[in-house]
């Protein structure tokens, strides 16, 4: 495609093809759109934050009322989720580091570890959702819980898509090895993965920490 000439061998693999450079640039703009998407969901969450209709003001006991977020959020569980996701972002960075050194095997190893941490995060999130629903806080309970599930659910859906996407990319590397084309795909997936981590930090502080205060 456009302007493929004069590529220095020191250029990272993912930037060596013209289409690779276009794709990476385009993906940054896509991430810009994703920032707006999550900002809108956060804005919605904070607008409805006090709409805990039916929630009982006093702590303890569930007679008749809907549980308040402060009662159900557990610092331990969500902290573990946060750490798991942060580590996965770190291992993803290591994968890119190995890719730059063209160590295909260790790159794949780190990608697989990233995936396992991602799956661990999802497992923890799903068990948390099940616990919340069991305690009487479901999607349709009130506006607060609707926006809680919408926000965390959108993030969780992004993580799930990211996992599926990364599995497809690992398969391609097994088949075709590390080329400017596959390197570009790994790099873009890593940008996406770091972005999800970035969003989670806001979820953790904005939803869980503030919710527990």
């Amino acid at each position: 495609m456009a302007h493929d000439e004069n590529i220095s061998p020191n250029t990272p693999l993912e930037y060596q093809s013209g289409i690779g450079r276009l794709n990476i640039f385009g993906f940054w703009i896509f991430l810009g759109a994703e920032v707006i998407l999550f900002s809108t969901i956060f804005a919605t969450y904070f607008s409805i934050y006090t709409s805990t209709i039916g929630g009982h003001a006093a702590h303890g006991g569930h007679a008749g009322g809907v549980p308040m977020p402060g009662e159900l959020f557990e610092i331990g569980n969500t902290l573990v989720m946060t750490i798991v996701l942060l580590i996965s972002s770190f291992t993803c960075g290591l994968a890119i580091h190995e890719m730059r050194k063209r160590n295909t095997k260790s790159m794949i190893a780190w990608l697989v570890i990233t995936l396992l941490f991602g799956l661990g995060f999802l497992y923890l999130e799903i068990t948390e959702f099940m616990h919340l629903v069991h305690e009487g806080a479901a999607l349709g309970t009130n506006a607060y819980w609707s926006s809680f599930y919408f926000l965390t659910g959108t993030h969780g859906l992004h993580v799930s898509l990211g996992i599926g996407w990364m599995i497809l990319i690992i398969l391609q590397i097994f088949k075709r090895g590390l080329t400017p084309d596959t390197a570009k795909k790994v790099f873009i997936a890593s940008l996406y993965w770091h972005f999800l981590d970035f969003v989670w930090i806001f979820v953790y502080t904005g939803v869980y920490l503030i919710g527990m205060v």
Partner: protein
Amino acid sequence: MFDFIKDNLILNDPMLLGANISILLSVIGIVFILTYFKKWKWLWTEWLTSVDHKKIGIMYIIAAVIMLFRGGVDALLMRAQLTVPNNEFLTSQHYNEIFTTHGTIMIIFMAMPFVIGLMNVVVPLQIGARDVAFPYLNALSFWSFFFGAILFNISFVFGGSPDAGWTNYAPLAIEGSPGPGINYYLLGLQISGIGTLLTGINFIVTIIKMRAPGMTLMRMPMFTWTALITNFIIVFAFPVLTVTLALMTFDRLFGTHFFTLADGGMPMLWANLFWIWGHPEVYIVILPAFGIFSEIFATFARKTLFGYKSMVISIVTISFLSFLVWVHHFFTMGGTAAVNSVFSITTMAIAVPTGIKIFNWLLTLYKGRIEYTVPMLWSVGFIPTFLIGGVTGVMLGMAAADFQYHNSYFLVAHFHYTLICGTVFACFAGFVFWYPKMFGHKLNERLGKWTFWFFMIGFNVCFLPQFLLGFDGMPRRIYTYGPEDGWTGLNVVSTIGGIGMGIAFMILVYNVYYSFRYAKRETSGDAWGAGRTLEWATTTSVAPFYNFAVTPEVKGLDAFMIMKQEREAGKEEKPEYKPIHMPSNAGTPFVMSVFFFVAGFGLVFKLWWIAILGGIGVLACMALRSLRSHKEDEGYYVSVEEIINTEQKKEA
């Protein structure tokens, strides 16, 4: 299954029964013609799987013109209903559905696709590129828009149309509308919105990264500039719409409480979120229109655009301000005086950069050698009429005065004056202007002038009286009124004007047919003889599929003008052809959009298995695309021989 179809197919209303029958007959007719002339394969290889930006642009425009017809019929039905007092031509429910679909279709499925279609045809040519940055994504953009539009449109014969206005305000759209109509609205817009967002990303990358050597940002043609800024607005605004629609979809399908009255929902949240997207949306359709007019003024006044730099600064300013005015859509809904004042000031501030543009256009015309072609007529006609729209906009922007005007026909007249004079005039102007680039011949000038005058006069006759009706207190969205209200006379006048615009549309359609049969074929790429920008620099009238045999070199603003001057001075170098790399056709964008449609349809009727089937199809298409390697997808090379053959055709 049979019961489901029987329950939802609307057959009780004679008008809708007629619509059903005519749709059925058209489908049978199209299938028959395609089969009889053995055109199925041609349709698939040349159009449905095409990734050529010019063909995608043409498909966008065709779809937009069909939607213009549908939206126009809705408009005429409304005018027919309102012509006389106590009319019973339409029922109140039917009327609600018609003004809802009229607004939605005209904004989302007509105006925006029309300008995006023109962008597709023109922008890569104007910047000297072979195609957009992501041709495959471009096809996906078009098809998801197309199937979103189809999903929205089938509502009127299957299940019932949305009826809560194009703004779809909660709680009316949740608790007040139990049928599937609103679901159609939510999912039709959602699916086509995906396409729009992808277009935004695609064109930003195209314009920033794919310009021909020498084309700095400040040498870009004005239409490309407006396209760039518009696509930035798209990328910032459309994710908001995505979320907003998803929230209401959850409210309607899964029992959440974002916008409901009960359980803590906040209906006002819908209004805020909707207009944070909705006001920038207005500028998504108006800024490219400004770009089109700029090109046409410069071309037919034979002068460089006056105040190029201030034009650029003003569009950037407008795009920024467009995000800061959304509250003016509900000044009367209980905001504080301070809030209303802030948004009143930002709203009126938009008049400043817009005024700068108007003066620049006038100064471009000043001392120009003006040639009144049809595109020029539309552009010149635009200035005074758009001014009426702009000035009444400032009147509405004053929060205190808005308490008088809001929800009256004054508002209706105002936004039709801006959107029709801005966008629709520009669509017609650009359509006629770039027609030879798309089809190899011009439209007939005489018929074009008839279209212009019928539309121009019809438009003013239709909407000027509506300002007065607004002053007289006639509310918008009203289904009928009594003779004692005293609104009859002006409404009759308004309807006559509406008919005028309908006639203009028919002349335009006839013009397309007439010119296809009889117009002289253009031989040069510079059909108007006065082209200034690179889209006119192609050797053949219709740009070859690879656009330029040799990538042009840009030496200043109005790059083609400079090339022509050099050619006259005999400084032109002999072109040296190299094989050209082009992307291959792709069927997945079409198939994937069909699955989007299936998923959307399933959700509209809460038929979960259909929705899941569609969703799996979409994911499978994405996975297949991801698994393709660059090698398998790298397209093909056009040989030097073929380039020479194509390039010499015009000389023969």
